[in-house]
């Protein structure tokens, strides 16, 4: 029998053979109009026929019947309007005759359209039934025939379709070639050239993109209730609640969601909007601003579906940057090119006039290590600056940008992976008096930030002159839409203004991915600074770099959180290592800022010793970090910290995908209430918890069970560690919920995340957790031992905290 199968393929198959299984009876196959491939109408061992499998997976929608089939060469299309989308086509018979026509379901076959008495719209039957073309239109190959044909599985079909996206000529045989199913190539320390660099990172970016796409597209949620509102800009906003979990991707401002209405009260509708609100301590609602107000069924409130819209933009920009780095030798200087690839290059010192005063106008005076970092970055084409928590990284960066601008003629490009970090830096640079523009993604223009007034789209509104543009803008703001000719004119005028503003700027600030914005495409930036660069993947970092880098400053701290990589396969291949980290491994010594101004000296002790070889000095005295007038029973009055031992049970949260711990939640509430009563303001307190389930539970629990006014608890920020990176609070309370031995997000295992968690607090920190469970992990064992030695590992009621006598094993030697 195997021979028989072999023989089947030994013959050269005709062009019209099914690209999956090889069947080639002209009555059984159809051609895809888009890619011109032929497929049969047999299912093999999948849930739909081969042709439907192809159309769905490739998102192709039109077909033609074979010329030698019973109907001859026939393009399937609506008799009336010519629509060729087979997913909306169907047959409709004449009332009195055995005549049929193909009509699209909407609008041609709709009751109202068919005034002709000859036709019976109720008899409309779709062309595709049970995921197969109607078998009397395209025959199903005989069972015998199907068994003799190639037995292709759904997995193989999937892979073949993926291959076709890269190589249109790929065949089934290519599936067996090595490489298709293998692990991706590991990232290297050094690369021969830009091509090798692209060849390794390109596939990783694609892998992450595919994963992200799959994840987003699988997140559709139905039965959504919607609350409608209208924003200040007159755009319609939809508010609703969706289930969230830890492992799914995070919903972020600016993400796109699609709402669909499935109810009966309105004709089917779908519309896309940008996320302008995510679940927070005020409400669990998600808010999206609709792109257009037209046709929004705002009288309906239930029966909606939410889809996550995947965007390839950021991945496309990374791929473009990799390509440019490989082929365009003018995209970075030769020095930068070789340095980034890890080649040996002779040191270069730039000839430049060093400023007399290193501190920039309106920014704090710099300390010694900060001055050194500024001086070094002005003199070298490539510098790494390591800024441990609270060491004035942003001020140092802003100062460097100030001097770079004054030394060079062109504008300086300033980037960071996250919008928050970009905003913080933008604000500081603006203070020095430089002309700064914050370039936002179009999808984020509606989101408010402290530097909104510096955003390009807002600066345009405040530009002098340009009365025609302003008039059109006003009209657009008032009515929501412009006529198409007005819209065209509006866009043209706006583009010209954007160009004018960007060209006049001293500094342009945007996210790394934002640097790939077409509006910057024709700019060259010789001086580029990237803040929080350890949080970007390499290709992400390359997006700004390839815009002309001759002098590059990477600021970051490889001891804090790295980039978020969702695809485990890509992460395993080294995709989650940042450029900053690799350059450090290559032996480029980062300039470390050494004085921290944030934490009470007692709080900085453990992080300094454990993460920074004890090099972190304190720029603040204990006295300056005493909470005046706050009466709190610290177990050791001179040490505003403790580990609150708690044996509470963890449980699966309501969503089924996360965890919560009621005992810890109640302790967190008690602590919070105590602090509030003793005079601390809600905005001074931050509650950190790794689990989405616990976050949502804590928010609810505190508001309903706290003895004080619910509004007070509402103003307390409860969030993940990641959400706190780059920021600080006076008091941090952390709820560990559980040990994380099996779960995916690796929160408690990652030393860098623990470092971030421990270094957010200025005045005090309290960790609530189960020491017995946590001490099994070497990292936590170190921390617990430190707390124990300091007599701040405690248990019991808040008014009577006692040292915990819990025993745990001595920590194993840990290689950091």
């Amino acid at each position: 029998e195997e021979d028989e199968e072999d023989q089947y393929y030994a013959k050269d198959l005709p062009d019209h053979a099914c690209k999956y299984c090889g069947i080639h009876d002209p009555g059984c196959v159809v051609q895809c109009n888009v890619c011109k491939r032929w497929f049969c109408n047999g299912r093999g061992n999948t849930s739909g026929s081969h042709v439907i499998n192809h159309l769905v997976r490739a998102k192709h929608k039109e077909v033609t019947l074979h010329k030698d089939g019973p109907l001859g060469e026939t393009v399937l299309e609506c008799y009336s309007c010519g629509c060729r989308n087979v997913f909306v086509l169907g047959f409709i018979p004449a009332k009195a005759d055995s005549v049929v026509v193909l009509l699209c379901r909407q609008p041609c076959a709709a009751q109202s359209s068919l005034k002709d008495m000859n036709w019976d719209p109720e008899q409309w039957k779709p062309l595709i039934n049970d995921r197969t073309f109607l078998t009397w239109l395209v025959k199903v190959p005989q069972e015998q025939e199907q068994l003799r044909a190639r037995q292709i599985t759904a997995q193989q079909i999937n892979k073949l379709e993926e291959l076709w996206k890269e190589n249109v000529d790929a065949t089934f045989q290519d599936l067996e070639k090595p490489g298709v199913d293998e692990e991706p190539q590991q990232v290297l320390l050094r690369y021969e050239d830009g091509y090798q660099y692209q060849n390794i990172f390109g596939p990783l970016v694609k892998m992450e993109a595919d994963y992200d796409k799959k994840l987003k597209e699988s997140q559709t949620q139905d039965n959504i209730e919607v609350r409608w509102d209208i924003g200040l800009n007159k755009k319609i906003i939809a508010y609703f609640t969706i289930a969230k979990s830890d492992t799914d991707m995070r919903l972020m401002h600016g993400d796109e969601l699609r709402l669909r209405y499935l109810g009966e009260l309105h004709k089917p509708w779908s519309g896309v909007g940008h996320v302008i609100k995510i679940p927070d301590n005020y409400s669990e609602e998600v808010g999206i601003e609709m792109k257009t107000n037209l046709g929004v069924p705002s009288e309906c409130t239930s029966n909606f579906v939410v889809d996550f819209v995947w965007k390839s933009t950021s991945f496309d920009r990374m791929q473009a940057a990799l390509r440019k780095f490989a082929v365009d030798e003018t995209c970075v200087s030769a020095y930068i090119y070789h340095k980034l690839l890890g080649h040996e290059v002779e040191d270069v010192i730039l000839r430049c006039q060093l400023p007399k005063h290193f501190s920039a106008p309106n920014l704090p005076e710099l300390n010694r290590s900060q001055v050194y970092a500024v001086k070094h970055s002005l003199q070298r084409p490539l510098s790494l600056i390591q800024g441990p928590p609270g060491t004035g990284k942003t001020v140092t960066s802003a100062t460097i940008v100030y001097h770079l601008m004054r030394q060079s003629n062109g504008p300086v490009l300033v980037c960071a992976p996250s919008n928050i970090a970009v905003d913080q830096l933008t604000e500081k640079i603006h203070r020095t008096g430089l002309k700064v523009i914050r370039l936002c993604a179009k999808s984020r223009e509606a989101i408010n930030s402290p530097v909104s007034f510096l955003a390009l789209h807002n600066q345009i509104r405040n530009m002098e002159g340009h009365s025609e543009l302003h008039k059109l803008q006003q009209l657009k703001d008032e009515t929501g839409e412009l006529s198409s000719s007005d819209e065209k004119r509006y866009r043209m005028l706006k583009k010209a203004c954007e160009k004018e503003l960007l060209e006049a700027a001293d500094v342009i600030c945007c996210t790394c991915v934002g640097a790939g914005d077409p509006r910057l495409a024709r700019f060259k930036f010789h001086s580029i600074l990237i803040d929080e660069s350890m949080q970007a993947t390499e290709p992400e970092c390359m997006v700004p770099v390839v815009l002309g880098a001759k002098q590059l400053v990477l600021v970051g701290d490889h001891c804090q959180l790295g980039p978020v990589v969702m695809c485990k396969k890509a992460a395993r291949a080294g995709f989650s290592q940042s450029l900053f980290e690799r350059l450090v491994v290559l032996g480029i010594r980062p300039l470390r800022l050494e004085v921290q101004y944030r934490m009470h000296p007692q709080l900085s002790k453990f992080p300094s010793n454990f993460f920074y070889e004890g090099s972190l000095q304190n720029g603040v005295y204990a006295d300056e970090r005493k909470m005046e007038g706050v009466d709190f029973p610290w177990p050791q009055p001179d040490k505003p910290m403790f580990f609150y031992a708690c044996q509470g049970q963890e449980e699966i949260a309501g969503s089924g995908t996360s965890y919560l711990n009621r005992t810890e939640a109640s302790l967190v509430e008690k602590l919070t209430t105590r602090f509030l009563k003793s005079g601390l303001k809600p905005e001074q307190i931050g509650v950190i918890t790794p689990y989405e389930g616990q976050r949502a539970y804590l928010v609810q629990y505190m508001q309903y069970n706290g003895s004080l006014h619910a509004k007070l608890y509402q103003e307390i920020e409860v969030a993940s560690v990641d959400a706190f990176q780059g920021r600080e609070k006076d008091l941090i309370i952390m709820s560990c919920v559980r040990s994380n031995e099996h779960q995916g997000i690796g929160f408690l295992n990652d030393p860098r995340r623990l470092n971030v968690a421990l270094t957010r607090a200025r005045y005090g920190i309290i960790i609530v957790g189960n020491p017995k469970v946590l001490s099994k992990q070497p990292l936590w064992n170190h921390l617990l031992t430190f707390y124990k030695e300091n007599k701040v590992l405690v248990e019991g009621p808040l008014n009577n905290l006692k040292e915990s006598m819990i025993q745990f094993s001595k920590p194993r030697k840990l290689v950091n």
Partner: protein
Amino acid sequence: VTDIPRVVPCPEDDDFMTAFDRILSESMLQRNQESVKPQTDIVIPMNIKGGNKKVQTIPTAFLEPKIEEQKNTINFVLMTRKGNKQQFKSLEVPLMSDLAQNLKDREKAERAE
């Protein structure tokens, strides 16, 4: 190997089914949002209609809703259009299909009248 081909469930197949449902509903929605002006009258030429069957372009056999007992099919005419020119193609529809069943029911009803 001689077994009949049957569905082998797997994640890839599940994904396909989900994607199928999505493409279907998306396509429908898209149609609702497009402004399409349908042709309101779709004329069946007299020569195709019931009585007058002697037309050269179409073999007589196509036009007779003749039931071929052995093949268990019934002949229909699929009317298509190339520009403004109508075309007619013979279509064998299984007796058990909705299309054929409806036609038979209708004929039965007419006879009963």
